[in-house]
């Protein structure tokens, strides 16, 4: 089992239930979790906390994940951002990766896919 107790993961997700799911999945890894409910909150938390990785939803109120990723990427070139979105079309995926996200995984999330995507950045 992964032990990420030294890591801080920021989850940007506006749907409560989807945050709970990620929290449930990540709980056994003991990673410290932070929760932003809008893109704007994600940007501000990325400035105020020492974050190791961001799980970024795309469709969010106030500021979407693409704009948030663009801003965060401009300020921190080496902070891994993994988009997690229900947008499943190729054109959307291209838009998301162009914004500076390092990876993009599509909802419904598969637990293995998610864990493997994170693991790449934590090794």
């Amino acid at each position, binding site marked *: 089992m992964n032990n990420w107790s030294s890591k801080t993961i920021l989850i940007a997700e*506006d*749907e409560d*239930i*989807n945050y*709970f*799911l990620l929290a*449930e*999945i990540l709980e056994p890894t003991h990673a410290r979790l932070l929760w932003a409910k809008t*893109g704007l909150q994600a940007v501000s938390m990325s400035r105020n906390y020492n974050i190791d990785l961001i799980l970024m939803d*795309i*469709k*969010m*109120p*106030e*500021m*979407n994940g*693409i704009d948030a990723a663009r801003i965060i990427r401009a300020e921190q070139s080496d902070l891994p951002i993994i988009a997690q*979105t*229900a*947008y*499943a*079309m190729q054109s*959307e995926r291209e*838009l998301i990766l162009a914004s500076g996200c390092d990876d993009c995984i*599509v*909802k*419904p*999330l*598969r*637990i293995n896919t998610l864990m493997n995507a994170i693991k790449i950045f934590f090794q």
Partner: protein
Amino acid sequence: MKDQLKILIIDDNPADSTLLKRFLNKLPLWEMNIETASNGHEAYQRLLNFSADLIFIDYLLGSQNGIDVIRDFRAYGISLPMILLTGYGNEAVVVDALRAGASDYLSKNDLTPEAADRTIRHLIQKQTALEKLRKTESKLQKIIENTDTSLATLDENGFIIEANNAFLRLIGVKDENLVIGRHITDWNTDPTREVFSKALENCLREGVLNDFETSFIHPNANSITFALVNATTENESNGKLISLLLRNITDRKQYEEKLKSAKIKAEEADRLKSAFLANLSHEIRTPMNAILGFATILSDSTIPEEQKQECIYHINSSGRSLLNLIDDIIDVSKIVAQQVKVIKSTVYLNRLFDDLMLTFKAKNQNLHGNNVQLICSKVIADPEFIILADQYRLKQVLSNLIENAIKFTDKGFIEFGYKLKDSGNIEFYVKDTGIGISKDKQNLIFDWFRKIDDDISRLYRGSGIGLTISSSLVGLMGSEIKVKSELGVGSVFYFNLALEMPKSENQGTHSKMMAQPNTNLSWEGKNILIAEDEETNFKFLKAALSRMNTNVFWARNGIEAVDICRNQNIDLVLMDIKMPEMDGYQATRIIKTEFPKKPIIAQTAYAMAGEKEIILEAGCDAYLSKPIKISEMIQLVGKYLYLQSETK
């Protein structure tokens, strides 16, 4: 027969006149009709009644001379051929005479029949040709005036010298005087004016302008006329002229514009539809994420019971929101297919509001950490207050609006209720102290597909079709949902319906209609056939029915269903529609032909518009839509078992 020739002789000397008359009469080719006058004035008077073909004028006319007469006659517009007769020693005046307008001259001194004959013949021929030309010219002029093609002549600076009627019509001016001397671009508006001027400059250089498109503004009507311009230039003694030929292409242009805008609309609709589908995919995947994710966690047998319950709770609630989404999509399909009808019945309004209050209280046990208060405001205290309305749709609209308010309100209150207006209307409203909607977005929120098209950000949570459905439904009720909102302060959604009271005799029927069918009948020993190709679905139905002590039979397709009906004493069939080999429609038709009284209840996931009619037409007595609610199924099955036992 000789040609007639009418001649007028102007000579102040009667002897000379007679002499000339006699001479002319002798000419062989013509039959002469000769009149005489002694001076210019007399000749002019004579010409009013005598249409001469030719005039002879003596050079010496007493106080006048012939050249002056010729000049005067020409100035009066007399175009007849005039021959000057010159005498001895005054041949030198011939040049002056011709300049003044004389057609030819003859010398009295050597006047031979041959010379006279030749001169007359030549002049008559020339005159005939001229007249022909004049006729042609006037014909042309008439054509120009009456043609539908607009014609205008400009000087080289672009000022109008002449214009025909069609041109006046084209630019919408009645009087020619308002056009002559004006610049051709006076009727253009700004961007086209400059372009047209450039084109005319070009035309002067190149000598031609082909199919140039421009537009003129009608001075009064403010309407635009589109014209196709062709032009050529001519060199005149005092500069170049531009001949314009303009065709009115307004109709064609308008048609083109219409086509263009129809095309843009179609493309827009297509784009919105694609965006709608992309968004729908997103909205389906979102609850699926929770369902599949929590189901995976649940499959781990080592997790504690408390966590299991939490997973099940999340799966349930996501499943429900998925179902809501699908119901919304079905409503959209029905509205688009115009299959939604408003069915008015007696509505106990206060009960409806109590019901809404209960539902939302139960759903939102602690609304945003108890920061939001839910208020139901009923202005009429009488619990039996009734109106005539479509209960189901009214409740759906209000639910949608309340649900929306809950989503966007973190603190303060949500108030919903109704007011009676002086106008005889009843106003329904849902008011919140939520995030509000900016002015520019207020119109967009009711548009089909619009919200999702807006951008990838969330304007509203959910598929965004709840509001458009509500707006369409209220439209069907003959009203319109309106919104007043301020960013950061809150929103009010409201609509007015005409207040209708049910007729008194209808009042009692309400409770009867709502009466439950008798389901107390014993189900023991009843044989129920479940036609269902999916094993999971069969097991679910079997589990539900077994609790009622019934015997359950299973058919995996339509053929098996027919077979079992023939060989077993089946009391009721639960018929799936989509099955392999033989579908539910066909199986129903066969069973109903052989056993007309056997109750068949369809169970189907196709809850689309029009589906219900096809199912009932195939012979099914009722239908249940999947996912099936156990209580609903038990009630419906009980009703038909009861009805059947009564008819037996």
